[in-house]
């Protein structure tokens, strides 16, 4: 069977079996939805407090800031659906030695580890984020044209790729340190800065969130694209960062595997 077809069939089996096993735990849906309502409510309250006093947030109107919050919610949904269930399991694979089974399969191990399971409970969050972002953009006066939609979709895809790569690289470090779960919690906390437009932060943090942690590329840049006010150079830069970080994650995984396979017992 040809390569891509085999991967596609494997992915279907992966997700089919994952959905079947998730359905054993229906209560999770309720918990995820409640967590989303709580998070979103808190952020909305804060925005309402700021804008209610007639202040602005780094030059962003309330509607424009809501686009950023919408994208943040969407990314959080993607994390719950795909990133956390898969990348979180890497540490367990390393601790319990079941990574061996993955490495013995004639299939790319990064593909296996990144797509092995899916958790449907984050889907409502993705939908909510999308509705919030699009609705707020229309309120803010964005005119949906081909370029805006294409640019927005491309930037969203870039931000998902960047988030995935960052997370995967951190999970990979578990090969050396075994317990790195705290690191990904720090990452989550830092990324929650992405709820608000990047220009709302002081200059120092702004640099940190653009250069060191690509928070700006996760939410602010896609929001600008959806609002139809981003420049071509930012779009290109974002694409470059996405491609670069994805390639880096692949290289880093190979590097870690070399150490795993020469040291594990």
């Amino acid at each position: 069977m040809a390569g891509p077809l085999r991967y596609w069939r494997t992915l279907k089996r992966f997700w089919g079996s994952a959905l079947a096993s998730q359905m054993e735990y229906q209560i999770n849906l309720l918990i995820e939805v409640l967590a989303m309502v709580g998070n979103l409510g808190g952020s909305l309250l804060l925005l309402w407090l700021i804008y209610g006093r007639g202040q602005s947030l780094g030059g962003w109107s309330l509607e424009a800031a809501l686009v950023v919050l919408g994208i943040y919610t969407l990314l959080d949904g993607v994390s719950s659906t795909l990133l956390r269930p898969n990348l979180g399991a890497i540490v367990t694979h390393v601790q319990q030695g079941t990574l061996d089974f993955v490495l013995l399969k004639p299939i790319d191990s990064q593909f296996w580890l990144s797509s092995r399971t899916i958790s449907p409970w984050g889907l409502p969050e993705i939908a909510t984020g999308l509705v919030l972002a699009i609705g707020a953009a229309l309120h803010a006066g964005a005119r949906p044209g081909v370029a805006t939609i294409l640019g927005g979709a491309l930037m969203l895809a870039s931000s998902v790729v960047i988030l995935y790569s960052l997370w995967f690289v951190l999970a990979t470090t578990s090969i050396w340190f075994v317990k790195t779960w705290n690191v990904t919690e720090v990452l989550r906390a830092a990324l929650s800065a992405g709820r608000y437009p990047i220009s709302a932060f002081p200059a120092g943090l702004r640099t940190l969130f653009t250069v060191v942690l690509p928070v700006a590329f996760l939410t602010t840049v896609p929001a600008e694209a959806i609002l139809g006010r981003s420049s071509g150079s930012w779009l290109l830069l974002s694409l470059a960062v996405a491609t670069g970080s994805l390639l880096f994650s692949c290289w880093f995984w190979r590097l870690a595997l070399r150490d795993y396979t020469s040291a594990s017992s």
Partner: protein
Amino acid sequence: MAIIRAERLSKTYRVADKQPGLAGTLRHFVQRRHRDVAAVKGVSFSIEAGEMVGFLGPNGAGKTTTLKMLSGLIHPSGGSAEVAGHIPQRRQADFLRQITLVMGQKQQLIWDLPPLDSLRVNAAVYGLDDATARHRINELAEMLELGEELTRPVRKLSLGQRMKAELLAALLHQPAVLFLDEPTLGLDINAQARVRSFLADYNRRQGATVLLTSHYLADITALCPRVLLIHEGGLFHDGSLRELSSRLAPCRLVRLELEQPRPAADFARYGELEACDGRDVRLLVERERLTDVVARLLADLEVRDLEVSDPPIEELIGRLFRQGEVA
């Protein structure tokens, strides 16, 4: 032609050297000390296609490390290996399709789902079409005596049923080479016997090569005409179990039942006294002197019964391992 070849294969691990207690922990945190531990030291052997070979050795002798090097999970520190015409640690897809590794203490089946779901995943990974996969699952399930267990969540299966399902998952792609690390670990006697007869059957039908480690010597005696014994990282024996036992015990065990009890000192001139309990005496006698000693015993003493046997192999191997621990 040999399907598995190990040439002076060796593996050295770096392990952290840490003293117990808080002070030791702090010192370890500030200044790491490492020492090299040789798990496998220059082991060479070759196995022909279709052979079933038992791999013996105490815990930590290097059995699992060797299996992991042969299956490509870890790189050798020295020497080389070749399995099915490939260098294992390159883990090329063509190589991975030809081998399988079953680990008694690890499982690949999805815990919450019936084994059938995991089997379908494996079928897709190995690129088997539905008809082929179904055919193989049915065939293996019949050999393993698995039926409705395949549609029950794994967490609800007994250990024996789970191990059989693990074997099914590991063999779905019809590997030519099977590395089995303690496949009967923790199973009761009946389940062990069933796994054993399945492996013999599978080897016969598929002509597969099997390299098997087990704590249960019964697995090895039942399945493996040839035994590799690893001791302290090196290959101690390569041959049949019978040869191993004569090598480990150049002595035979002579049991005597006497008419009258005799003091222990009387037996020193016949051989090594193992036990002297009144009228029951057990002596270890060198093989070459056996007939001579027996004749003298019968002549010198009033013997009611006499029996000559090999010391049990478990005991011999156990004694070898204990000597290793002391040394």
